[in-house]
């Protein structure tokens, strides 16, 4: 896992640094030269400020040396400070943001599985039926909807300009601080409906297709035929004999769906102005705040690897033939 992490971060580090756009220019250059207040300046001091900025963040060092500094900090669980808020540690901000993004993502993952699995099973078992065709068409439609578009549509439909049923901004009401605990929780749930819906539908579509495929493959197996020949009910055949084996490919997807959700959270958090990890990564990227980008990406990569680990462990749980020494 550690070599993989080093590989991922090195690649990202290089790609990020080679991308056009310079944080020092953004920090200083947008500005001009001098301060607010209309006083005389002999000459602008932008160049000096840019040089100082680069020196401060070691951006004037060779790329590998910069990476060395960075990985050294990461080893101490420190992603450095933000470029534009030098008194804010990326690690602390990341932790704060993860507390928003991870629950949202987890709820979406769980919902995706809870909805996708029955759809997948149903469409496999009733293959070729109207239900199968309808479900297949529906999930393909969902799968092909870009989430930024879907998010904006949901805002227009359910926000004040439409039905006015749901809040569209953030995860809290403007007066949330004064709410009772129960009302606070309900408020969060209310605010989370649209973002969670957008995060969920894409994964749901994907998972249900995988589940269908897995189930179809299993129900063609000889042992299923045998089970049916024994006179077992279709319900027992499907849920007792076929389901567990057909779950294997879906379980393996768990690792893949986490990064998709985190990727999706960039868009969803931006659309709904939710101050989570996705929005943090996006802001960092636009501002060329390398520390923020590397911090968020590393956290995502770590979560992905953890997803792989969980998948591997779950393999053994769902398939007794697989064991790890």
């Amino acid at each position: 896992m550690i070599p993989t992490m080093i590989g991922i971060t090195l690649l990202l580090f290089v790609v990020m640094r080679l991308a056009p756009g310079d944080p020092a220019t953004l920090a200083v250059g947008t500005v001009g030269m001098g301060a607010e207040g209309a006083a005389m300046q002999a000459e602008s001091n932008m160049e000096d400020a840019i040089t100082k900025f680069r020196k401060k963040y070691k951006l004037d060092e060779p790329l590998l040396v910069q990476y060395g500094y960075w990985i050294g900090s990461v080893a101490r669980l420190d992603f450095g400070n933000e470029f534009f808020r030098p008194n804010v540690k990326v690690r602390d901000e990341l932790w704060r943001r993860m507390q928003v993004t991870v629950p949202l993502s987890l709820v979406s993952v769980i919902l995706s599985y809870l909805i996708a699995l029955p759809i997948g099973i149903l469409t496999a078992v009733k293959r070729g039926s109207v239900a199968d065709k309808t479900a297949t068409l529906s999930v393909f439609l969902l799968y092909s909807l870009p989430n930024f578009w879907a998010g904006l549509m949901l805002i227009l439909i359910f926000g004040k300009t439409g039905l006015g049923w749901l809040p569209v901004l953030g995860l809290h009401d403007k007066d949330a601080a004064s709410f009772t605990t129960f009302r606070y929780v309900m408020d969060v749930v209310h605010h989370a409906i649209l973002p969670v819906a957008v995060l969920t539908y894409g994964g749901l579509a994907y998972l249900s297709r995988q589940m269908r495929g897995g189930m179809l493959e299993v129900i063609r197996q000889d042992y299923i035929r045998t089970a049916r020949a024994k006179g077992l009910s279709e319900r027992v055949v499907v849920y007792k004999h076929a389901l567990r084996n057909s779950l294997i490919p879906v379980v393996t997807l768990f690792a893949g769906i986490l990064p998709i959700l985190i990727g999706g959270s960039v868009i969803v958090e931006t659309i709904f102005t939710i101050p989570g990890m996705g929005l943090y990564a996006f802001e960092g990227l636009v501002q060329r705040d390398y520390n923020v980008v590397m911090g968020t990406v590393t956290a995502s990569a770590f979560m992905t690897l953890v997803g792989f680990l969980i998948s591997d462990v779950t393999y053994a749980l769902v398939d007794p033939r697989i064991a790890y020494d």
Partner: protein
Amino acid sequence: MISQRLRLPLPSLLLVVLATGWLFAGCGGGSSDNANSGARSQQSGADAPTSPMDPELAQAGVTELDLAGPHVPPADYFNPDGAAVTPALGGRVIQHIASEPPNLNFATENSAVIRWVLREIHSALLEFNLDTWEYDPTMATAYTVEDMVLLNEGGDQPDAVESSGQRMLYGNVTDDGDAYLLTPGSAHNTLPERRILKSEVESVQRGTVFTFDLRNDVLWHDGHPFDVNDVLFSWSIYSNPHVDCDEKRSTMAMLANAEIVGPDAIRFFYKEQYFRAIAVFDLAFTLLPSHLYNLNDPDNPDYNPDATDAEQGTYINENPHNLDWVGLGPYQLTKWERGRFLEAKKFDGFYNKDPAFSGYMDTLRWTHVDDDNLAFQALLNGEVDIFDRVKSEDFMGAATQQEVFTKNFYKSYTYLGSLGYTGWNLFRPHLSDVRVRTALAHAFDVKEWIRTNYEGLALPATGSQFWFGPGYNRDVKLLPYDIERAQELLAEAGWYDRDGNGIVDKDGEDLEIEFLMPSGNKASEKLLQKMQESYEKIGVSMKITAMEWAQFLERILDRDFDACNLAWALTDVESDPFSLWHSKEADPNRRTSNHSGLQDPEVDRLIDAIRKELDPDARHLLYMDLHARLYELQPYLFGWNVPKKIAFNRALHGVKLYKFSPGYRLRDMYYAEGTPGTRPLGSST
């Protein structure tokens, strides 16, 4: 007034950068009016010239009221519920902000939005008065301005003081034949009156010595008394190279020296005569609490008398109070939920209890929503009360006509000092010829664009100064839209279609212009497409290149562009034209705000004269010449001033519109008596 970074990052935001007095955006001295008999007026904002209403503007729907300044339209001018009501105390107003300030220490952070917040939760020695366009003393009770007499080496004045390695005297200087008569201009000036022979004098720098009498009844938000040591410390940080205040350092460095001259009095020496010297004492001079920022202050819990400059610098840069701000304003920061909102509540210890000065509301909130479309939804949802980024199409269209909007909100607009323009890179050979640039100006119909795109709600601009200020020459009119003249000019410059491909050429090269624009900016995109269409008519090929803001900015500052579409947001009545137009700022090897690279001796001469000229009338004449000369040179295709379009909650009263960003002030606003959550005037909290 200067450069300020709009934290821009988000694609929905326009351009932005700025320089002396200009906020690169896609983006105001005066004497105290109380108790400063010795002070002299240095500013002329309130004396802005007025011209008769231009018939073309009148025809376009622009009213006298739109152009009036500094006086604002009456409060609640646009509010359908705007009939006079009795103000109540209390309540909360929520302003939308499109970007969140990284921190609130204006010494080290220069984003635009920080000023809006600090205007309510902090104060300065002087504050720009939005109604009068003068600088009023706020943390000072009064100030005086005196002149400085720099003595030459032979000057025989034993009591001369030293500032920046130069011997000098100060007071009010009057010419007296072969000598200068120097008289004290401030109660704190103890130098005796005298005659100084001109032969002893190297130069007289007028209006360079400022003495402030501070208020002695002011408390920081943590209850600590504000005093003269806070001011001295706040000035001293700019000489510490370890403090991250590079964006302001050169400006503040002009305050060469400071000295405490009494228990509540401090004197500053400005390096040389400069027309905008007074403006440095506005919010730009960020007052910091010494007991929280100064390691050498015994009241500081982290007191360290041996602290090095580096330690002190780091202590300021990373001070937790940069976020947890302790200020001097009528409101104090009470909550900052990152990514969501900042909230401030009325500060009980504020010295002035009059709500007309210190505000009526109990709570002010700035809610951060990046995306303008979503912010508009947030307005409709009641999450914010004020949204000042209403798009033109929404302002004119159904979005603000539907009941869900009109029931609770109303729309209004105010012209600020913004200037949308197309900048030409004069270092590019094909754009270095003024005839080519003039041809391009003739070939684009600005008036038609304003009429069709803004439905007339924009003012054509021919200069870069504040449209309503004394530096703007309204007599300079737009070049007419004239395709034939444009073609003639191109031909005079040697550009005509030799190879019959429809594009004019010269020396074997077609006239092709690459326009840079920040991606995602629909307004720029629409404009550039129109320009592309217009220039095609004169055989000029135009390529539009959209790119991310970071890359866009880098290319502009590296002068790696032909043309760019940008905007300046002016932050002062008069702005120093130096950084935008002076040849010294056109060095191709330096990144500056003169990104067009204009170099013209006459422009330089006028700028140098303006910067030294303290007489408003004389300066006005210089500005007029500068404006005309710049328009003649066409370094920009000077564009237009689009008003800021603002949606307000109808329940808000007392709303006044100003000509400086953001165009209104939260402190003015109140709810009508009887509104739930409020209490009558005169009652306590």
